[in-house]
């Protein structure tokens, strides 16, 4: 029999419902994997085995009473440590929030618990979700379960910022995990670790209770082993929330039930601007494979133009830090979290000392950038200009979607890099998001599905971007790729 920890969301849920195994058995199996991998992978900041068991017991009890178990009934998951969880430390992987225990539960996590999911623990991430490698976490970087096939033993990045989520799902520490995506933080780590992740349309998932990075971009989404599991979990996470003014007041479609990999009559756009000079050959090949698979699924392939693509990354690195510089002002040592009050110091000294000690280097860098671009005399040149670019990028997509239903592109410009490889070069690090950021700026649903391995034996992801609210179209195209890519690779267990 397959191990329980090899099962995904749908298989666990259906197995629990059918009585093939109990939810407690599932939780115990994953708890054991979490504990065994912690030293090697550092995927969790806090493990909560008791929470997982408690939720599982509740599901088993419901089953005994013949009650419905929920969309996620009996499925234990990992929770990115950006979601506030009542009674469980919530840090955003920062020192400034170390020891902070919220009295409230984020809307998205509360919805998941309501649907029968249980929590295995709080997953590591880049500090305040700022990073593409998980190296900015105050609690040490996550290590990818993947290794290159070159015989070397280089520790690889699991991607970021949802690197704990990606590592944990690919290493079978949890069947699925929550992620958040501001400029690729679900999609890039999913691509780096051979799993599937979707960032829905901006506003689908409530931001209430998620530690804010860049409010106009932040969006939660599921990370799991396949498209079906993502569809199920997204249904549990999404929905209108009156506590979030930017939440979409739309019903949540039955995405999982309506999955359909037949793309006859659909048009897939290929944006030629994404085919850059010096593109990684394996990445280029995987894109060509994707095109062939979608054609095979019945889709018509069309060339589309996204002319302002090259301005997306600079615009993103103005808008996101600008919002972050303001969103992170609340971490001031006055009410909660770290307070550094040197002897005889006043309020200003306390702010300075607390923030100097509490924020990591990358967070400080972005606060400085954000403060600079919003300051008097620079605002128009940077912020206003970036907002105009953002509008143009949205318009590019809207025009492209007149000619196609979804857009296919690589998720990231390369496979996973080694830890430390880009740490001294922020620009090289930021370039990881070059394919992911445009969809973020336009608020569009976008997902990454595994496409295969590169010549180093590392996973590559393909990205599908859809029209606003058309998660279904994105999931369907993702499923068509998944069925043809036949991606079954998984990291060899070395931990």
């Amino acid at each position: 029999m397959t191990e329980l920890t090899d099962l995904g969301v749908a298989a666990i849920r259906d197995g629990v419902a059918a009585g093939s195994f109990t939810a407690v058995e599932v939780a115990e199996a994953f708890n054991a994997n979490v504990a065994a991998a912690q030293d090697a992978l550092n995927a969790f900041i806090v493990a909560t085995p008791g929470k997982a068991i408690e939720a599982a017991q509740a599901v088993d009890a419901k089953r005994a009473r013949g009650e419905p178990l929920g969309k996620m009934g009996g499925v234990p998951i990992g929770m990115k440590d950006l979601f506030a969880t009542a009674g469980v430390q919530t840090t955003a992987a920062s020192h400034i929030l170390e020891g902070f225990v919220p009295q409230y539960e984020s809307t998205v996590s509360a919805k998941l618990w309501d649907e029968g999911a249980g929590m295995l623990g709080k997953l590591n991430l880049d500090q305040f979700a700022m990073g593409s490698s998980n190296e900015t976490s105050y609690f040490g970087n996550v290590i990818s379960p993947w290794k290159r096939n070159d015989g070397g033993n280089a520790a690889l990045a699991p991607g970021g910022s949802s690197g704990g989520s990606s590592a944990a799902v690919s290493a079978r520490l949890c069947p699925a995990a929550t992620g958040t995506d501001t400029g690729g933080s679900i999609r890039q780590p999913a691509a780096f670790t051979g799993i599937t992740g979707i960032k829905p349309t901006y506003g689908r998932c409530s931001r209430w209770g998620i530690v804010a990075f860049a409010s106009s971009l932040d969006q939660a989404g599921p990370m799991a082993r396949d498209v079906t599991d993502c569809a199920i979990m997204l249904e549990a996470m999404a929905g209108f929330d009156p506590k979030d003014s930017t939440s979409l007041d739309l019903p949540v479609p039955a995405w999982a039930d309506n999955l359909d990999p037949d793309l006859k009559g659909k048009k897939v756009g290929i944006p030629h601007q994404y085919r850059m000079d010096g593109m990684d050959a394996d990445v280029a090949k995987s894109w060509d494979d994707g095109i062939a698979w979608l054609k095979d699924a019945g889709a018509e392939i069309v060339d589309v133009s996204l002319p302002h693509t090259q301005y997306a990354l600079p615009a993103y690195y103005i808008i996101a830090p600008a919002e972050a510089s303001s969103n992170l002002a609340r971490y001031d040592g006055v009410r909660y979290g770290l307070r550094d009050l040197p002897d005889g110091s006043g309020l200003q000294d306390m702010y300075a000392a607390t923030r100097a000690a509490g924020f990591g280097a990358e967070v400080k860098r972005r606060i400085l950038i954000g403060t600079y671009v919003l300051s008097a005399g620079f605002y128009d040149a940077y912020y206003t200009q970036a907002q105009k670019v953002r509008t143009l990028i949205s318009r590019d997509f809207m025009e492209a979607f007149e000619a196609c239903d979804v857009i296919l592109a690589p998720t990231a410009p390369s496979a996973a890099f080694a830890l430390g490889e880009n740490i001294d070069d922020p620009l090289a690090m930021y370039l990881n998001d070059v394919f992911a950021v445009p969809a973020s700026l336009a608020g569009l649903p976008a997902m990454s599905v595994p496409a295969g391995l590169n010549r180093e034996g590392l996973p590559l992801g393909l990205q599908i971007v859809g029209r606003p609210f058309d998660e279904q179209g994105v999931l369907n195209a993702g499923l068509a790729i998944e069925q043809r890519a036949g991606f079954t690779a998984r990291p060899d267990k070395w931990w």
Partner: protein
Amino acid sequence: MTQSTYRIQGTTGDWEVVIGLEVHAQVTSKSKLFSGAATAFGAEPNAQVSLVDAAMPGMLPVPNEECIRQAVRTGMAIDAQINKWSRFDRKNYFYADLPQGYQISQLYHPLVGEGSLTIDADEKAGIPEAKTIGIERIHVEQDAGKLMHDQHPTMSYVDLNRSGVALMEIVSRPDMRSPAEAGAYLRKLRAILRYVGSCDGNMEEGSMRADVNVSVRKLGEEFGTRTETKNVNSVRFVMATIEYEANRQVDVLEGGGKIVQETRLFDPGTGTTRSMRSKEDAHDYRYFPDPDLLPLELDDAFLEDCRNSLPELPDAKRARYEGELGLSAYNASVLTAEVETARWFERLLGETAVAQDKQPAEVAKQAANWLISELFGALNKLGMSLEDSPVSPSAGAELLALVGKGTISGSIAKQVLEKMLETGEGANAIVEREGLKQESDTGAIEAKVDEILAANGDKVEQYKAGKVALFGFFVGQTMKAMQGKANPQVVNEILKAKLG
């Protein structure tokens, strides 16, 4: 238009004062601008703080429709342009009373645009005629919390009860030219806010406070550099601030100095202002659109609803009192200055008309005169305001009906009112019990008149010889003899007949 003649007399000549006011008015609403927390004044520190107000991680603002509605209604009451599309911006700065590290305000696209209000002529105060003061905008923003420095020897405590409370910032044009004009503007604005019900105007509790912008110039010159004195919390202090600041600026300028654009504080103890921070130290607030909030878009139905809910405003009411009710300009102005007074008067008027079976216009003068000359005076002596008057409008109407029907005289009515205030009894009961009914029986009055004329034969002679002023003496004697209860009209008639 006749200009204000208020001038600062300097050694180099006369200076004109230019004043603009930014009034922060707390919106009357049960909950805060972006959170469900309560807003009542006087609660225990930090008893009215939601997760949003304390800026806990991941908390988000959601606009409170009632606050927006009140600001729109206020805008309509000053005939302002209502912007159907407006937006919230963040004003970023660090302070311990500002949990988010930014205030949500409206810099670029305020809810309410250009409007105005008219201050009334007040000859005595140096306002020769009514004057229109421009209002540039009203925007909606969050209040900050409060620091308490007197609770601990080395630490300051923070009370977040006010944090997130909705304020309207009402920004005038620099259209005022004297402390009196500024005072009149504030009082008028306060009256309008209270009529509309969008702010209780309670300056003691901090529901209304003003930032006072003052500059001086020689007549006909460009505006001078202004200073801004923050958070002045009474009309009197605003006027004192202007007085002091204008004189200080003239002294500086005439001494060869320059006015620096700065923020100042008013000290109520000394009546002076002092510098808080100069422009060089001014914060760079890094305003930008709040990404947690969508633009505020108002539809026609909402605006229609706001407009329909507006009461009759002070200017319109005053005009109606003068025109339809025939009241004097002074009485109409007194009765409409405060919404409570107008409401009280209108109830009194309605009841009085019914009690005497007349049209309101026929009894309006009687009611207005009684309220202004009698009741206000009596309450004043007791140190009471109209709101806590023991005499209700219907009790007043009962009293006025007795006078109107000739049952008691005006002077007896004064006594009755005093008894009413003392005992809370009704006018009819007091008059009945104390036997204060007016005597109109000609027989009884005639008998008394005959006695008095007989006893004062010499004065009758003098009267007949042409000293007609003695008529008053006879009236007085008769009334005295009748213990004030004789109908004065009957007394007059009888005396006239008997004296020939």
